[in-house]
């Protein structure tokens, strides 16, 4: 393409052709999703095993590894994706901000749980189990709708169903025993992140 004058018809052709080129669907690979999925599953298994062996609830603090490790890795991986694609659309910004809010909210949940425990002595940490199974599925469903990706919507709905069950158990006073809850938690993250992550990777390679 050069710096030359156009006829009116050519102008219209340039505009429509450039719009068509930018409308190409860019499907990010599912590596960020896979990283979060495997990280959650790894920590869930680790906490489950350590709880079973030692009976010390302090092992639950290992969950704080998730935002630390995941946050740093996500930043590095997003930069790589942006460098490879070279363009940022409205959808990219919307999904990025959606995940930033969903990802930072557990910090606030943890702060509220801590304050309530200090003030009332009541253990509210069950909320930390319900949180990722409500907020994360909603963020994932929204992303699935935005980028028209069914695997994200289905994965999000599966996670949400498990989240609703978790909330009902907490409200009904049913104890979330690690023996049945940890496998359910792992299942939710496999459905929400690992399965869609692999599907996205396969589609991205095909594209």
């Amino acid at each position, binding site marked *: *393409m050069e*710096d030359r004058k156009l006829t009116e*018809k050519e102008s219209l052709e*340039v505009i429509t052709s450039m719009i068509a080129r930018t409308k190409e669907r860019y499907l990010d690979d599912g590596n960020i999703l896979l990283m979060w999925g495997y990280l959650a599953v790894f920590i869930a298994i680790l906490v489950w095993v350590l709880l079973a062996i030692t009976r010390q609830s302090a092992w639950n603090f290992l969950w704080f590894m998730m935002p630390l490790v995941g946050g740093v890795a996500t930043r590095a991986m997003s*930069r790589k994706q942006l*460098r490879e694609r070279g363009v940022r*659309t409205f959808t990219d910004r919307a999904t990025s901000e959606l995940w930033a809010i969903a990802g930072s909210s557990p910090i606030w949940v943890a702060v509220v749980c801590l304050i309530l425990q200090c003030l009332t002595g009541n253990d509210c940490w069950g909320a930390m189990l319900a949180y990722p199974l409500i907020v994360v599925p909603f963020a994932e469903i929204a992303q699935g709708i935005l980028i028209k990706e069914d695997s994200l919507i289905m994965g999000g709905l599966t996670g949400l169903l498990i989240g609703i069950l978790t909330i009902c158990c907490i409200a009904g006073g049913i104890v979330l025993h690690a023996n049945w809850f940890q496998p359910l938690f792992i299942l939710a993250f496999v459905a929400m992140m690992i399965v869609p992550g692999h599907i996205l990777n396969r589609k991205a390679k095909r594209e």
Partner: protein
Amino acid sequence: MKELNPLLHSQLRLAIMSILMNVEEADFVYLKEKTESTAGNLSVQLDKLSSAGYISVEKGMLGKRPRTTCSITSEGQRAFEEYVEVLKTYLNL
């Protein structure tokens, strides 16, 4: 009949503006690839659009690599929309 904006009535500048109307930001490499232009020519046209206040050009680093990012300004959006409206009258659309 109103005259078409001469700054936009050029193949490469119009292509750049059309792309930037559709994305939030695009880097130099992306624009070069989509417009199939040479780096030198693209650079000159970006400077012209930037001087007119139609686009903003930011030079920064992404990781360890330099990256030039372009995005359309509100003035650029208005100019593009006006260009399309005038173009419609020329083409009787």
